[in-house]
């Protein structure tokens, strides 16, 4: 067994892990990245489409290009990369966090560190999570799995495709499958509006004449050995109208029905989770309830742009470095999601400095105004215009917004609302 003793260990070598590790190294801290795949980059490596890096690099890059730019910096730094290694368990042993890993190349590796950054990303929700009835034939894939098969492994998963869910991965896979010569018969969305960006609706569906069924539920998957079709039915006022059900023949079903932060390691370490995001609850320094354990990127909450992942991860890395120096957050104020807001992350702000809070709306709103309130007193008002759940929003709040907080009392709450 090998033992490594860096100042910090970063779990996950995708965009979040690399950005956090580079920040730790910049602060003079020794750091190990543990990555399950061979090589760095995470999910970006299978995202062959363009659209990454507009904020970070002012260019429209594909996933692998974005990832390689970060990976080059990591490999040129003193950060140790332990790839092809699975993190098995995270626990406290006195002052130290211990992360047990195993890899085919190095066997069991024990990492002892004083700080941990969780950057494991997400998993896809699958058929079991959304309970689609019917038989269990071959040919049902999550969209991300199909993306990996097509873009990395060079395998065509099927010829006649129905995509369930209109998230961006599903839309992008509809275009990808069309471009490799498959026929995409339909995209089926249970909500009355698409989950993905308008740009993707236009460029991934309309360009190919792929029908989008909004407000439709998939009521059955047919087929014995291989998928033969799906049955869909419209929802009228929340109830299924089976009289208008239709069958769409296909040999492949791709599921794009959402992402869930990967929490096994966090749970085992006693990290408290936020039901609204599915990821850890973090304070103003992106630290979880377990002292010295930080979280960033898609494991914290699902982002729609990798550029925001990198931004957030840099802060997590910098805060972890500060924590290693013995710094602790100043007085904090609790943040909660108000009207029309699905979640906020983090759930605390530091009163002594600027804080960036990410949030998502609950619904599509036109002419919306963002209000930050402390105990019902509006401290900041921003005209937002159009907001929709698929576009993550953020607000920066600083000491000027927290003036005359003394009168609000110690159990004051900052509320982020859209009105």
């Amino acid at each position, binding site marked *: 067994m090998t033992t490594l003793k860096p100042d910090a260990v970063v779990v996950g070598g995708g965009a979040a892990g690399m950005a956090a590790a580079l920040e730790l190294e910049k602060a003079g801290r020794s750091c190990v990245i543990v990555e399950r795949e061979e*090589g760095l980059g995470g999910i970006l490596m299978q995202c062959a489409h363009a659209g990454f890096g507009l904020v970070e690099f002012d260019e429209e890059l*594909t996933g692998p290009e974005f990832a*390689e730019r970060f990976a080059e910096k990591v490999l040129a730094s003193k950060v140790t990369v332990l790839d*092809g290694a699975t993190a098995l368990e995270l626990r406290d042993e006195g002052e130290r966090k211990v992360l047990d890993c195993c890899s*085919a190349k190095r066997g069991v590796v024990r990492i002892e560190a004083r700080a941990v950054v969780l950057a494991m990303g997400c998993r896809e929700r699958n058929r079991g999570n959304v309970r689609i009835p019917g038989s269990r034939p071959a040919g049902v894939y999550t969209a991300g799995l199909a993306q990996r098969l097509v*873009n990395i492994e060079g395998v065509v998963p099927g010829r006649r495709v129905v995509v369930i869910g209109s998230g961006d991965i599903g839309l992008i896979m509809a275009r990808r499958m069309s*471009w490799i010569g498959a026929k995409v018969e339909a995209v089926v969305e249970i909500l009355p509006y698409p989950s993905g960006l*308008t740009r993707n609706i236009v460029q991934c569906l309309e360009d190919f004449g792929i029908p989008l069924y909004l407000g439709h539920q998939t009521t059955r998957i047919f087929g014995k050995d291989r998928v033969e079709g799906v049955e869909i039915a419209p929802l009228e006022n929340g109830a299924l109208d089976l009289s208008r059900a239709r069958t769409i023949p296909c040999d492949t079903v791709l599921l794009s029905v959402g992402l869930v932060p990967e929490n096994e390691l966090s749970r085992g370490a006693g990290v408290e989770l936020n039901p609204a995001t599915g990821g850890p609850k973090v304070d103003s320094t992106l630290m979880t309830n377990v002292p010295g354990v930080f979280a960033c990127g898609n494991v914290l909450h699902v982002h729609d742009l990798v550029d925001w992942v990198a931004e957030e991860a840099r802060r997590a890395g910098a805060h972890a470095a500060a924590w290693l120096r013995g710094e602790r957050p100043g007085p904090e104020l609790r943040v909660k999601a108000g009207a029309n807001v699905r979640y906020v992350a983090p759930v605390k702000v530091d009163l002594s400095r600027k804080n960036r809070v990410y949030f998502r709306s609950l619904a599509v709103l036109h002419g919306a105004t963002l209000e930050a309130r402390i105990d019902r007193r509006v401290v900041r008002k921003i005209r937002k215009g*159009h907001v929709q759940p698929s*576009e993550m929003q953020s607000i920066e709040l600083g000491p000027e917004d927290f003036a005359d907080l003394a009168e609000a009392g110690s159990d004051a709450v900052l509320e982020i609302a859209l009105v």
Partner: protein
Amino acid sequence: MERDLVCVVCPMSCALKVRLGEDGTVLTSGNRCPRGARYAAEEFLDPRRVVSATARIRAADAPERGEVGAVARVPVRTAGPFPRERIAELLEAVYALEVALPVRRGQVLIPDALGTGVDLIATRSLPFPPAGA
């Protein structure tokens, strides 16, 4: 001839009506900002897309099937927006490629694809990091 377009410049998703004026200029209504008019003109006269795909690796350089961490295809894209009407032709050219390794990110695989002035480039270095880097 009037066409309905949805603007994709920002999330407002304005419903645009676009037609060609008698003097040959593109007339747009429904846009809430000048960027919408610009998008409408481009999309109406010369729609373009950044095309991404994957290309075959030359057999002698390709990994064994099932090899751990093996990358079986080289991801590629057009270096800039490419005429939408010619994407099918471009894909045929991409699928006919046999890319020799090593390949570097940004390496031009098809210069001036189909005479459009747009290059097709690799978007991933194989192997990574490149030898000698």
